């Protein structure tokens, strides 16, 4: 990749981080937990966006960032109070800034009117005026580019300053001060720079040099006069001295007719003149003298002064006692701070981590194989080999956990995008909504995080659009006008659980049922529990909005959300209390790479059932099994009946009906379809397995979530418990459908 393109990619990456910092900083300011350092951080974020954008010539972004930055600067300097009204404007400005960044990236477009309006609001904040009305015509001029020195990047001052008629050259006198040298400026370099404009004739005046005894090595004693032959203007000459103009006396005049008769500088000597006054004086007056030689001499003089200055400076610590300890203190501070921040993190290419994870996966498989071989060889469990193998297993698991922890990231990055979504959606549907988040530091695998964003976005949109009521309705119902949507993440039994809850009206079950019936999703006389009714909204083709709204509409319903979640090995469910609100619960595995599973045998095949889905295992007794219809059966488990699923039949391993009492039953629970009893032939053990995608390596198979490689090297399929249950339900509805034969036979 073109290095500049690579940097641009870095810039956009950095922008994402800066925008996130910006938003969280502003939110802190909004809820009052921020301080001046927060304001500084927020300012820096916008400032850095602007700086980078400028480097890439992203002008609209620079322009908006500049206005934003100016307002933040006012806040930083205390001219603008960090009051909620101002912060709210800034939050919206942050959104627009994010839009500008996206647009600069080539993703989406900026609503120019909204951008201009916000820029005007920001300016109004600064000036303390009332913001202009929405209908007022607002034109953002290229002010940012004109007034702040940004002109430098579309024109070069050297070029614009061509004066007519250009004189043949300039006569420059230059007398540096002590301060100029203290800032590490060098006369020699300035002279060298001046020479780039044209040939120079340089003269050194040492009149002010005192007797050697009185010389202060840090003092500036010399004056230079330079005749430069150039067609460049005065500004070009002055630009050479741009950095030092405050620390020297400088005059730039048109050349006099006789270049060498400098009336204001009658006595000219070089440093060497001290030793050889006559010869040097003659040299100085030599009109044809080589400028280069003079320059070298000037450099030599400077070097000499420096050479004197350096040892003196280092030899007199007593004269400047303060700096050293102060510097040491600074270093110490820096050290402490570093160990707290910079030193504790490193940036690693994700590919390397993925490679490591793959390798650890192989290690786990290999270790399992080894264990199996050892078991087959008939070694006693107490043998040293077996004991050593157990240690290896512990270590392998620890390595695996540690590697997984590398990939684990807090869900914060996803949560941070939500406040904006809430603001936008709420404004669009004219509702007042406050978002509260909890557990944003909950960690989960990076790949899971990346794919969390869409489902969460959908659930929040849904909660605002369908859950939270309009302010008037809420007040009438005795609730505060502002609705609350809560986004919460937590770890629960090896999974991450994300909850999106609202305090809205809850699901209108009668209406949901009616719609489902109208759309033919359920039979007209179906009797459904509240839970089943609520879950109807996840059915494909179900949309409660009579008019597809801008918000939740977009052609995607909750069925898509469910599919996305299931693709991650997750579950989604909903609970709702009429009048009090609804809660969507999404649970996902912490990682997509390993899984604790129960290895079972089914019709000669080895399958893996995710351990998290299993509640208990039991041996069905004849009296507990009740046949239901031609092929169905239920199992009495304590006080209730659960559907009995013959796994072999559903997966098509076996056609003939089975004896329900032969084999073992896994009582599983899915978060969507309730409980079921899976009938398998035998349980082989509990094992951690490495998940290999079936879709990526073969194709999607109904009822199967993924595959894994067992210790003996064979491929085993991992059951998708939810899908198995719904396959069974479909079969119950359509008994004629023949079970699909699985393509993978051993």
């Amino acid at each position, binding site marked *: 990749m073109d290095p500049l393109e690579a*940097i641009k990619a870095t810039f956009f990456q950095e922008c994402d981080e800066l925008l996130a910092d910006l938003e969280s900083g502003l939110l802190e300011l909004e809820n009052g937990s921020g301080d001046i350092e927060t304001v500084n*951080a927020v300012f820096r974020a916008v400032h850095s966006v602007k*700086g980078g954008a400028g480097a890439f010539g992203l002008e609209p972004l620079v322009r908006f960032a500049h206005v934003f930055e100016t307002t933040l600067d006012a806040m930083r300097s205390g001219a603008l109070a960090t009051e909620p009204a101002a912060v709210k404007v800034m939050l919206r400005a942050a959104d627009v800034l994010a839009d500008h960044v996206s647009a600069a990236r080539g993703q989406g477009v900026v609503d120019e009117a909204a951008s201009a309006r916000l820029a005007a609001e920001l300016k109004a904040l600064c000036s303390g005026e009332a913001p202009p009305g929405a209908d007022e015509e607002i034109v953002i001029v290229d002010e940012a580019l004109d007034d702040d020195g940004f002109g*430098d*990047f579309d024109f070069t001052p050297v070029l614009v300053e061509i004066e007519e008629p250009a004189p043949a050259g300039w006569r420059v006198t230059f007398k540096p001060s002590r301060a100029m040298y203290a800032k*590490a400026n*060098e006369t020699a370099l300035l002279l060298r720079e001046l020479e780039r404009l044209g040939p120079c004739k340089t003269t050194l005046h040492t009149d002010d040099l005192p007797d050697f005894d009185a010389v202060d090595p840090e003092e500036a004693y010399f004056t230079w006069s330079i005749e430069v032959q150039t067609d460049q203007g005065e500004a070009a000459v002055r630009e050479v001295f741009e950095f030092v103009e405050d620390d020297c006396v400088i005059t730039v005049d048109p050349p006099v007719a006789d270049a060498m008769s400098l009336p204001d500088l009658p006595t000219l000597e070089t440093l060497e003149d001290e030793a050889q006054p006559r010869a040097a004086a003659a040299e100085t007056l030599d009109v044809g003298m080589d400028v280069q030689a003079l320059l070298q001499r000037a450099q030599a003089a400077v070097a000499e002064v420096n050479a004197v200055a350096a040892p003196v*400076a280092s030899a007199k610590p007593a004269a400047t006692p303060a700096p050293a300890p102060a510097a040491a203190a600074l270093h110490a501070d820096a050290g402490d701070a570093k160990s707290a*921040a*910079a030193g504790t993190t490193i940036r690693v290419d994700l590919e390397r981590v993925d490679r490591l994870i793959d390798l650890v996966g192989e290690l786990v498989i290999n270790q399992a194989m080894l264990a199996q071989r050892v078991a087959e060889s008939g070694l006693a469990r107490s043998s040293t080999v077996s004991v050593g193998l157990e240690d290896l297993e512990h270590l392998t698991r620890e390595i695996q956990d540690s590697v997984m922890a590398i990939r684990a990231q807090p869900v914060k990055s996803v949560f941070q995008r939500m406040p904006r979504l809430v603001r936008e959606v709420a404004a669009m549907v004219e509702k007042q909504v406050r978002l509260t988040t909890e557990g944003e530091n909950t960690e989960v695998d990076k790949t899971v995080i990346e794919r969390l964003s869409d489902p969460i976005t959908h659930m929040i949109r849904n909660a605002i659009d369908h859950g939270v009521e309009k302010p008037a309705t809420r007040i009438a119902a005795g609730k505060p006008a502002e609705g609350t949507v809560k986004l919460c993440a937590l770890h629960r039994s090896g999974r991450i659980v994300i909850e999106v809850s609202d305090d809205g009206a809850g699901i209108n079950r009668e209406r949901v049922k009616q719609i489902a019936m109208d759309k033919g999703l359920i039979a007209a006389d179906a009797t459904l529990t509240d839970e089943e009714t609520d879950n109807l909204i996840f059915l494909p083709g179900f949309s409660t909005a009579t008019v597809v709204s801008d918000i939740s509409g977009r052609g995607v319903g909750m069925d898509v959300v469910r599919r996305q979640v299931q693709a991650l090995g997750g579950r989604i469910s909903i609970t709702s209390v009429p009048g009090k609100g609804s809660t969507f619960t999404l649970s996902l595995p912490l990682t997509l790479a390993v899984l604790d599973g129960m290895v079972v045998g089914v019709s000669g095949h080895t399958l893996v059932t995710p351990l998290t889905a299993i509640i208990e295992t039991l041996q069905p007794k004849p009296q507990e099994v009740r046949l239901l219809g031609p092929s169905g059966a239920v199992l009495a488990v304590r006080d209730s009946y659960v559907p009995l699923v013959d796994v072999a039949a559903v997966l098509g391993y076996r056609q003939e009906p089975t004896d329900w009492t032969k084999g073992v039953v896994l009582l599983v629970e899915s978060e969507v379809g309730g409980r079921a009893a899976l009938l398998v032939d035998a349980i082989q053990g509990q094992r951690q397995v490495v998940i290999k995608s079936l879709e990526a390596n073969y194709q999607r198979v109904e009822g199967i979530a993924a595959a894994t490689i067992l210790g003996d090297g064979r491929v085993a399929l991992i059951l998708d418990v939810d899908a198995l249950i719904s396959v069974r339900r479909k079969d119950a509805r359509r008994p004629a459908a023949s079970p699909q034969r699985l393509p993978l036979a051993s």
Partner: protein
Amino acid sequence: MSKTVLTVDDSRTMRDMLMLTLKNAGYRVVQAVDGAHGLEVLAGETADIIITDINMPRLDGFGFIEGVRQDPRHRATPILVLTTESDGEKKTRARNAGATGWIVKPFNPDKLVDAVRRVAA
């Protein structure tokens, strides 16, 4: 031997830009992410030229420059300040802290190298 430039900037983009530009111009580049880190790097590295941002967390550019100037080894090391703000006040403050010159962001590569050359022997 090529000269060493220490760049101090909290923005990764800027650091990368400086790195690219200066490397192409034949300089060796050492990086620091903020003023405090910059001083730390200087404790173990010799830099011929220093380029620093102003707005940085932990220790800003002004503090950093003062810190550098207090170190006898770096009294005469040229320091260029990166600034988007061309207003005189910032430059004056930077110069008062001991900066040698400044580069107005955004810079084009030629301007940057120009400025570095202008202050470096």
